[in-house]
């Protein structure tokens, strides 16, 4: 063996130690939050949410040229709350099997002071590719997703630093192999039942009592050691990973009593809330935050977006996660009620290929449900001298924009994917109530701004990496190539 081999071996051993999240024993992750923490929520407008159909619509009369052939709106469909520099599209009344309970107007009215619109020219019209680029900044930070980056920066002591309830390319794993396992996304497909995945036994029918199961889990380790299998596969990284999960993290999750704290299901046995389950009969209970979360998200048992929003708040509130991703999947929500209500449109925002105006209106309203509910919960939760909202940022990620062309005067038409768009960020940590950049009223295409001064500049084109860099600035995530987006920060 030569010196180079020795150095490689030493480096590998150091990396092995460093890569183990608990190299010298597992510190118990705190289940509370400190006033200095920040919280990132990524809400995914899956399928292509167009900003000119949401929070920067253009009046037909404002367009340069013939406004009837562009995605403009009549005055009756646009709202601009007093004090707001931004405007929004009102509810579009149209016969359709699809609907939503949200309101862009109500959202803007309540939160315009914290809303920021940042133009972007995306780099892919393929959904899955574009979705992944929306969260990786098109690879600007070694291929890390912004969620992994924030988790790596702030989540080491968290139990589940990076939780993801979204779909498609928004659940993609980043491409940087140096991201630790614990910072990778914990995928959650069933938010109302997810708390059960934090305890090995509670809630199961006919099983021994929890103390016996816990003891058995300890004895299992001895059984492992006694087997020839363990000796034969002592080098297996996969086996080591399983053992680490079984012996360390599982205990931490159970000890934190997340099965209670994160339980968003109403307890029908306890007489709390309608449409719940008899949790008390199963040795379970609703979250102590039950009443608060149901006031913001009353339909947790029937509407997945409500369930996601409720769980996202609790994951942040109990210090479980630094970043939570949520948003609609390609499937709308079928309420199976006698009216046959379908919330959302099929394939989410991409139903714009069939009926652009209706789809954008309904799906932005659906996203508004999550944004509004989440902000209300965060604002109501004290933290330090203010509230959790003071230290939160919501990034509404989307694949790309939609084509601005319209058959003359049409109310119903299909739109294509379009790279040019603008993204919505909401946070008291940003200079809110503003579009950074501008819009060309002849084409309805957005342009960027001087990143240092914040002044609109038609010659500037922002990319996914700039959106990534903006979030990175807020969360103190440093990397080579980060663009200076400090003009947007408050």
């Amino acid at each position, binding site marked *: *063996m030569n010196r180079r081999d020795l150095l490689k071996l*030493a480096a590998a051993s150091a990396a092995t130690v460093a890569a183990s999240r608990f190299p010298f024993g597992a510190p118990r992750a705190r289940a509370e939050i400190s006033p200095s923490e920040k919280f990132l929520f990524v809400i995914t407008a899956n399928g292509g949410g167009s900003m000119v159909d949401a929070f920067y619509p253009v009046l037909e009369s404002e367009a340069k040229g013939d406004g009837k052939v562009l995605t403009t709106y009549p005055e009756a469909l646009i709202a601009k709350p007093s004090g707001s520099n931004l405007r929004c599209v009102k509810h579009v009344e149209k016969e359709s099997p699809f609907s939503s309970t949200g309101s862009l107007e109500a959202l803007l009215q309540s939160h315009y002071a914290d809303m920021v619109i940042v133009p972007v020219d995306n780099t892919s019209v393929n959904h899955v590719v574009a979705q992944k680029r929306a969260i990786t900044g098109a690879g600007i930070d070694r291929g890390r997703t912004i969620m992994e980056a924030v988790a790596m920066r702030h989540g080491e002591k968290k139990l589940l630093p990076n939780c993801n309830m979204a779909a498609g390319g928004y659940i993609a794993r980043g491409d940087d192999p140096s991201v630790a396992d614990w910072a*990778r996304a914990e995928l959650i*497909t069933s938010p109302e039942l997810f708390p059960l995945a934090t305890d090995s036994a509670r809630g199961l029918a006919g099983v021994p009592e929890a103390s016996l199961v816990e003891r058995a889990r300890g004895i299992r380790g001895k059984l492992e050691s006694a087997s020839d299998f363990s000796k034969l*596969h002592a080098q297996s990284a996969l086996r080591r990973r*399983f053992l680490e999960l079984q012996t360390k993290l599982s205990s931490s999750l159970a000890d934190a009593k997340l099965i209670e704290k994160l339980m968003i299901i109403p307890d029908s046995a306890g007489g709390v809330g309608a449409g719940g389950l008899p949790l008390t009969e199963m040795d379970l209970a609703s979250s102590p935050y039950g009443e608060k979360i149901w006031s913001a998200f009353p339909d947790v048992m029937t509407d997945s977006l409500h369930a996601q929003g409720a769980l996202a708040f609790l994951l942040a509130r109990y210090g479980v996660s630094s970043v939570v991703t949520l948003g609609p999947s390609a499937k709308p929500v079928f309420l199976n009620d006698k009216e046959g209500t379908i919330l959302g449109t099929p394939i989410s925002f991409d139903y714009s290929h069939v009926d652009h105006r209706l789809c954008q209106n309904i799906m932005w309203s659906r996203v508004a449900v999550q944004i509004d509910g989440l902000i209300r919960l965060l604002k109501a939760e004290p933290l330090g001298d203010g509230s959790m909202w003071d230290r939160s940022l919501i990034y509404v990620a989307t694949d790309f924009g939609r084509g601005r062309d319209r058959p003359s005067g049409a109310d119903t038409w299909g739109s294509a994917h379009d790279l040019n768009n603008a993204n919505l960020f909401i946070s008291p940590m940003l200079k809110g109530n503003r579009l950074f950049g501008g819009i060309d009223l002849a084409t309805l295409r957005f342009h960027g701004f001087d990143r240092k001064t914040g002044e609109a500049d038609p010659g500037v084109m922002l990319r996914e990496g700039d959106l990534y860099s903006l979030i990175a600035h807020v969360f103190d995530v440093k990397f080579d190539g980060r663009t200076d987006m400090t003009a947007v920060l408050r």
Partner: protein
Amino acid sequence: MSGQSRRVLVLSLLTFGAACSSEDVRAGARKPTCEADAPAQRAESLLWKRGSALTADLATGLALSPEELCVELGTKSCLDVHRVALGSADTFNSGLAPGVERPLATSAIAIDRVVLSACSARVERDAEGEPEVFKGVSLSGAMPKDTKAAAGLAADVGALLYPRLLGRDAKDAELAVLTELAVDAQGAPVSRADFAKLACFTVGTTTEFLLY
């Protein structure tokens, strides 16, 4: 620090001190002057037994149908609720295909729940009717207080479980470990039914069952 990490670290420290060089080997020395032979980078030797494979092995081993294995809160199959954590794809909901590359933080707990529920279901059925797995073993009453009798019963249960779940006979050392499940943390005997459930759970969540 894991045992593996400790071994590699010690090994690297030893090799640093050994003044080992490749010239010594090229000189044709019968015994290399390098004190340590560094472990070669080994490819992963095991695969994760994911969702449907785990389901199939558990169902076969415990003579249950997949639907009988585990239900969460009386509403949904655990295999659907924990689909992603169990390693399965989730094509139609989240668009995840194939399944996650590495186990999630909650994968171990999800597996615990499925196996514990399945084992408990099997024990309950065998206790109430014609036994299919726990044949020739009484599942009523408490485990014997006498340690030798308890060890005998543990061996009987182990002799039933190991072939069904791991495809082999248990070693004496493994049966001795199973005997520890006969009492609770205070040393009081557990019920025979609980012992059977816990033994099944413990064997069924070893890495030997979960990986291949």
